[in-house]
């Protein structure tokens, strides 16, 4: 029972932290036009991560598949009761609450990414912006609930649930783990990220360098105008 078995494959772990980081980054770059390019890059990353997760839910390793989420209301209720009783049921892969949390987070993520893209492409107009902002805040609330839930279950279960999302490994019965962490798919994922970010950041650098000169002109013109106004 106490063997460290491989549960989360590497692409799934990369997905999880890329999704978390891109969501946080997109929130932090939402308020200023100065970071509009970063906000777009983070948004594409976020959308790509969700698209990958949907695919991986169909063709990934055992515990990454959506087919591992077969929990009905009765199973959810039993699990919650076991948590409250302080004798938590253990699940090697996703627990029953994931059946609610995963569709909620991925669904909200799709709305956030879709409405963000549509806003930038100027489909829909103001109400689309409204959808984008409301869905992003709803997702933030869901993320906070997700984090609090993980902390609570980790404490009740006396098992750190975050560490396995880095190492891939958990205590569990031999044979209930996965055989491979799919390093090749992980490599493809990292290559796709690099293909998006390296040109994106290079373009940002070029623009910042070019802006140095235009900004100087703008200040000059501005100063001149200001003197006229006096």
């Amino acid at each position: 029972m106490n063997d460290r078995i491989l549960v989360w494959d590497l692409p799934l772990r990369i997905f999880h932290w890329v999704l978390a980081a891109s969501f946080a980054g997109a929130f932090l770059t939402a308020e200023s036009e100065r970071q509009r390019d970063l906000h777009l890059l983070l948004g594409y990353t976020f959308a790509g991560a969700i698209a990958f997760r949907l695919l991986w839910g169909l063709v990934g390793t055992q515990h990454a598949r959506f087919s591992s989420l077969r929990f009905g209301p009765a199973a959810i209720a039993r699990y919650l009761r076991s948590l409250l009783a302080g004798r938590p049921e253990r699940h090697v892969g996703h627990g029953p609450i994931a059946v609610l949390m995963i569709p909620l987070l991925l669904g909200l993520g799709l709305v956030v990414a879709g409405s963000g893209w549509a806003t930038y492409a100027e489909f829909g107009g103001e109400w689309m912006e409204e959808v984008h902002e409301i869905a992003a805040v709803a997702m933030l609330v869901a993320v906070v609930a997700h984090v609090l839930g993980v902390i609570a279950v980790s404490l009740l279960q006396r098992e750190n649930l975050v560490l396995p999302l880095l190492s891939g490994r958990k205590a569990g019965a031999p044979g209930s783990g996965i055989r491979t962490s799919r390093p090749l798919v992980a490599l493809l994922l990292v290559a796709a990220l690099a293909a998006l970010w390296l040109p994106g950041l290079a373009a940002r650098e070029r623009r910042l360098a070019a802006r140095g000169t235009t900004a100087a002109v703008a200040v000059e013109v501005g100063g001149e105008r200001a003197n006229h106004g006096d």
Partner: protein
Amino acid sequence: MRVAIPIAAALALGAITARAERPADFEARFAAEARTADPAFAGFSAERGRAFFTNAHGGDWSCASCHRNDPSVVGEHIVTGKRIEPLAPSANAARFTRPASVAKWFQRNCNDVLQRACTAQEKGDVLAWLMTLPAKETR
């Protein structure tokens, strides 16, 4: 029939919240706000508006960085390179018709250029100037 009342109510509500306004409505509102802020308020000046718009205010950007020195032509976002439709109402009939959009972009853009909100006086001056610009584009 039973659905007609909610639909009519929704349409009426939509009409109120999304009521199209004219640039002059915004000017009147800015004037009222400016008078509240400063009882000595003496009207808006297009010349002051132009100076404000093209001045970098000690930072690296001015409003003109994206909207150009002549906002009656198409501008370009200084960060993303995206096209920005003209700001002058004569060149773009959609400008200063949607309160939510005007409020949102004054807040965002003033923060980016000035690191603070624009005053009603400043917004009114800019609008007064924009309203004097003749259309350059026949679209």
